[in-house]
C-alpha cells in the first residue's frame, strides 16, 4: 500500500517522458508503454472530441482508433518536429474527418531531403521544453481566450473569429515557430 502512495507522489512530480514511450513502441513494440500512453491520452482525446460535438460512443471509438493508429505509425513520429500531444492531435483531427466523411483533407507532401537521420537530441529537448511552456501559457490564459481557441480547434469558428485568435499574445507559439524554422533550415543544410 505504502508503495502505491509513493508511486502516486512521484507521478505528480514528474510526468512520464512520452517521447521515450513512443520510441519504446516504435523500436520494441512495447505493450506496457502503449498501455501507459493509452491511459493518459485516450481519455483526453475522448474529452476533446466530446467537446467538439461528437457523441460519447463515437468519441470512444475514435479515441481507440487514434491510439491504435499511433501504434502502427510510430515509425513516422519525429520528436524533433512534434510533441507527442501534437502528433496525437493531427491523428485525431484526421480520424474525425474520416468518420464524418464530408470532404477530403489533402496533406502536404513529405519533406524532401532524403532519408531521415536520427533527430538531434538538442532539438528534441528544445521542442519538448517549448511545448511544455506552451501548455503552461495555455493554462494561464483568461477563460474567454481559452474558450475562443477551443472553439477554433473544435471546428466551428468563422474566418473573422479565427483572425481574432491569431492576434492573441501567445508568445510561446511565436518562439515555437522560430524554433521550427531554425530546425528546418538546419536540416536543409545537411
Amino acid at each position, binding site marked *: 500500500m505504502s508503495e502505491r502512495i509513493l508511486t502516486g507522489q512521484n507521478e505528480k512530480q514528474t510526468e512520464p517522458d512520452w517521447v521515450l514511450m513512443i520510441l519504446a513502441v516504435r523500436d520494441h513494440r512495447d505493450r506496457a508503454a502503449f498501455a501507459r500512453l493509452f491511459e493518459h491520452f*485516450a481519455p483526453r*482525446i475522448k474529452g476533446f472530441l466530446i467537446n467538439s460535438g461528437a457523441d460519447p460512443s463515437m468519441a470512444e471509438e475514435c479515441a*481507440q482508433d487514434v491510439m491504435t493508429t499511433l501504434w502502427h505509425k510510430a515509425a513516422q513520429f519525429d520528436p524533433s518536429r512534434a510533441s507527442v500531444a*501534437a502528433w496525437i492531435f493531427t491523428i485525431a483531427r484526421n480520424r474525425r474527418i474520416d468518420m464524418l466523411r464530408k470532404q477530403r483533407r489533402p496533406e502536404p507532401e513529405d519533406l524532401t531531403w532524403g532519408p531521415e537521420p536520427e533527430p538531434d537530441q538538442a532539438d528534441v529537448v528544445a521542442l519538448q521544453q517549448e511545448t511544455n511552456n506552451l*501548455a503552461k501559457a495555455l493554462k494561464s490564459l483568461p477563460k474567454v481566450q481559452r474558450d475562443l481557441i477551443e472553439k477554433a480547434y473544435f471546428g466551428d*469558428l468563422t474566418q473573422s473569429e479565427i483572425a481574432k485568435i491569431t492576434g492573441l499574445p501567445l508568445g510561446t507559439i511565436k518562439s515555437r515557430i522560430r524554433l521550427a524554422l531554425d530546425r528546418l533550415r538546419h536540416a536543409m543544410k545537411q
Partner: protein
Amino acid sequence: MTIKHHPEESTLLAYATNNLPEAFNLIVASHVSLCDECRAIVESHDTLGGALIETGTVASMDTESLDRALARLDVKTMPERKRHTPGTLPTPLQDYVGGDVDSIRWQPVGMGVKQAILPTSSAATARLLYIPAGAAMPHHSHKGTEMTLVLQGAFEDEDGRFARGDVEVADADVHHTPIADIGEDCICLAVTEAPLRFKGWLPRIMQRFVRI
C-alpha cells in the same frame, strides 16, 4: 526558391483546425509542400492543438477499452505514408489530377487560356489555369476570397509579381488582370469561395497583351 507571397496566417490556422472547405485545404497543402515557412506555422498550430488536448477535459474510457485496443494491435494494417513525388505539381495536387502536368485534362476557354476544374466539395471551387506566356488572364470577378498559387512560370498584376510557390489572396472587391510572364506559359491553381464569373468573352477584353 524564394517565396514572397504567403496565405494569411488565419488561413493557416483554419487549415490546421479543419475549418476550411476542401478546395482551400488543397491550395494550403500545396503551398505548404513548397514553403517551409508556412509548414512551420501550420506545425506550430498542431502543437497548440496538442497542448489543448493535453490540458483539456478528461473523459474516462469504457472499462474494456484498453483490452480491446491491445487486442487490435496485431491486426496488420498498412499505414499510408505521405509521399513526395517530384514534378511541377506538388504531391497533394497530383493526387487530384492523377499525375503531373501531362495528366491534366484541359478545357479551352478561349485565346489560348485553358482550365481544369478539380473534384472537391461544393463549398468552394478549385481549378487549374493555363495562361500562355505573355497573355492576360481573362477579366473576371468573384463573390468571395480567391487564392491563386503559381506552379509554373509567373504572373504580374497590380499587387506585384507572383512566381512558383507564391500565393495571391484577392478579396471580392479586387479588380485584377494578371498577366503571364513572357518567358514561360503560366500554370496556377486558383481557388474561389464562389464560382468565378468571367465577364463576357468579348474579343476586346480577351485582347492578347504582349509586354516588351
